[in-house]
C-alpha cells in the first residue's frame, strides 16, 4: 500500500507482534525536503484503510528521504 502511494519508495514492513503492531521503514524520493512529521503523515495516509478496518492497531514509522548520490 505504501509503495502504491509513494511510487519509487523502498519499503520494509516488519511484524512486531502477530500482525497488528507493525514497523514500517520507508525511504522515498517524495520525502525530500519534508519535515519528519510530513513524511510520517504520508505513510500514515497510505495505510489508513488498514487502521480503519482494525487490522493494524499500532504502526511505528521510520522514514528517510531517498538521497540521490
Amino acid at each position, binding site marked *: 500500500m505504501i509503495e502504491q502511494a509513494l511510487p519509487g519508495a523502498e519499503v520494509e514492513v516488519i511484524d512486531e507482534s502477530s500482525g497488528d503492531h507493525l514497523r514500517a521503514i520507508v525511504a522515498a524520493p517524495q520525502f525530500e525536503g519534508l519535515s*519528519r*512529521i510530513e513524511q510520517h503523515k504520508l505513510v500514515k495516509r497510505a495505510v489508513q484503510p488498514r487502521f480503519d478496518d482494525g487490522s493494524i492497531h499500532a504502526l511505528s514509522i521510520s522514514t528517510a528521504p531517498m538521497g540521490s548520490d
Partner: protein
Amino acid sequence: MSEPTLTDKVRELIDENPVLLFMKGTPEAPRCGFSMRTVGVLDQLGVEYAALDVLPALEPLRQATGEIADWRTFPQLYINGELVGGCDIVEEMFDSGELAQLLSIEQPEMAQPSAKQELQQDPQQSPPIQIEP
C-alpha cells in the same frame, strides 16, 4: 456567549504550555508502550512538561488534534505551540540531539533506552491536566 469547543480548549493548552504531551495514561502510569517511551525521553531530558491523559475523551481529542495539527494518533508532543510528533519522531530527535536543541537544553550524556526510568529527583512536570470533553 458560546461555549468553547474542545478544539478551542486544546488550542489553549497548546498555546499555554511550552512543552505539552498528549498521552494515554499519566507520566506515573502510562497506559501504552509508545506513551511510556515518550515520557521516558522527556524525563531523561529533565525538562518540565504538562501531560494530558487522552483516554477519558479519546475520540473527541483525536478529532480536535486532527483539526489543529492534522494528526490523530497519540502520544503527541507539542513544543512551543508546534507539533513535534509521536513516539517515533520524539525518540529519533532525542537520539540525534535535535530534541535537546529544540528545548535549548543540554543533551544528557548517559542516555538510556527509554524503558523504566528511576526517579532520582522529583519529576519536573505540572500536575496532569483534566479537561471536560
